[in-house]
């Protein structure tokens, strides 16, 4: 599972990597005035319920954005790394990634292995 806590939205994706990678489900929530940490936890729980899973069933819970506030996670990654990975997943030939966020527009070059 991957979760991206932005300043306006929280984005969540559940993937199955057992045979080949399959995007199982995704969900976005606008934060508005809610507590992002609490909302993120709720989103994780509701997604798990939807697939009849427990937290322990997750092979990896990765966070990005402001996700380091999450208590239960395996690893936290910088936005640049995760955006590059995501872009590479859909468009393996992409060598330039542009991310227009709430605060900063970013652009960077990536190699074949999305580094």
């Amino acid at each position: 599972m991957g979760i991206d806590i932005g300043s306006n939205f929280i984005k969540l994706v559940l993937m199955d990597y057992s045979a080949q990678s399959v995007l199982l489900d995704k969900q976005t929530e606008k934060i508005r005035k809610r507590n992002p940490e609490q909302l993120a936890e709720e989103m994780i729980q509701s997604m798990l319920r939807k697939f009849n899973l427990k937290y322990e069933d997750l092979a990896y819970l990765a966070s990005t954005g402001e996700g380091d506030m999450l208590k239960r996670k395996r690893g936290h990654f910088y936005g640049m790394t995760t955006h590059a990975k995501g872009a590479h997943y859909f468009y393996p030939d992409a060598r330039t990634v542009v991310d227009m966020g709430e605060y900063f527009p970013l652009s960077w070059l990536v190699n074949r292995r999305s580094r």
Partner: protein
Amino acid sequence: MNKYYLGVDLGSTTSKAVIINEQDEIIGRGITNTRANYSVAADIAKDEAIYNARFSILKKKLEAEIKSNPAYSKYINDLESVFQYEQFKIRLDKLGEELLKTCYTFFKDAAVQEKMIQHLRNIRKAFKPVIKHEYLYNNLGAKNQFFRDIVSEKYNDEVNKLEMSLFEPLMTVWDKSISPAENQLITFNFKELVEKAMDELREKYKNIPDEVMENTSVNFDAELNLLKGNFEKVYETLRVHIDEIAGLEFNITNMTGTGYGRALLPFPQECIRSEILCHAFGAHAVFPDTRTVLDIGGQDTKAIQVDRYGLVTSFQMNDRCAAGCGRYLGYIADEMSISLNELGPMALKAEKEVNICSTCTVFAGAELRELTNLGEKREDILGGLHKAIIMRAMSLLARSGGVFNEFTFTGGVARNPAVIKYLSELVKENYGDQIKINIHIDSIFMGALGGAMFARRNMNLSLPTGKAETA
């Protein structure tokens, strides 16, 4: 017949209206939040000012009674508060209609429509009594008292209690409904509402003993019983006077529009004046020895020098960016999820001022999160933010010519105690202990007051040429 004069200050955040009589005394004040439709905002502020004027005339009529029986004053204040609740109820009905309309157009599926409407009904049922109680017992407290803020806070709370999947649709319905509801101009029947309010108050005082049984001391209980008995005694007298004030006609002889949105007011050209002139004139009227005026509003900060007649000799204004103004504080309050009025008191608790590097409102928001993550206390960060605002204001003051005795602080931000604290410190530090600093309880109305006073004088003023007059 009495002649009255109206000043309307259409600011970026709030719209203010002031009515004065021929002696330049304020007899009515009205304030509301500025909305998409400026002329509605101006009309509401004006209506509020007229209602308020009726109540202040009521107080004047009863001056002798109030002196002999101070409880009278409480009754009138209560009456005004309940009267506001009666207005609120009507606005809430209008909002309800809008919410239903949105539901029917936004959700295509009939079952979903029905479900959402049921939720909306429950939400309304849950918060209506709470708000009624807050109005009746003056518990609205330090929070913002505009319709939009009150309802949106309660609506938010209720929606948050529901499951997550309902949050987004219900909030979208809200977003689509609040603006049309807010932009309707509702004409209230003063007499009808004030009579309803009287009945409501009568009920309140009848029921008082049951309400306080468990949590108050015997003394307080006795006091309330006294209030209850008194109210029955004054009820008839009040009724007679209320009939009288409800029948009063307010002939506005002349009016002036000012503020950020003044060009959009439906006033003739000669009735529009810049807010710099109005703020200076208003501040000078209240404190006649004023020589320097600082006005911090929603989007701009102005440092103004005036002569002994209250006319502007020089001024400086912030350019381009709203950092350091009221909106900046509003943004920070939103970021911290607290209300704007809690910001100042919180900043007063600061033990030190954290240095804020960002000169931009949005980036300061990001910096705030970063500093919180680094372990800085919220109070200390807020202390730094407030000090930063005053530093900017000080540089404008210096550029406009400095600070001269007396110094008057106006605008919405003058309600913030932390801003006042840092301002007093820095003015003393830079310009000495001799400067008298004036802050009036009505500082937010100064622009509207100045406007009303211009209206009374019907003065034809032109902007100063920019060169400071040598006194």
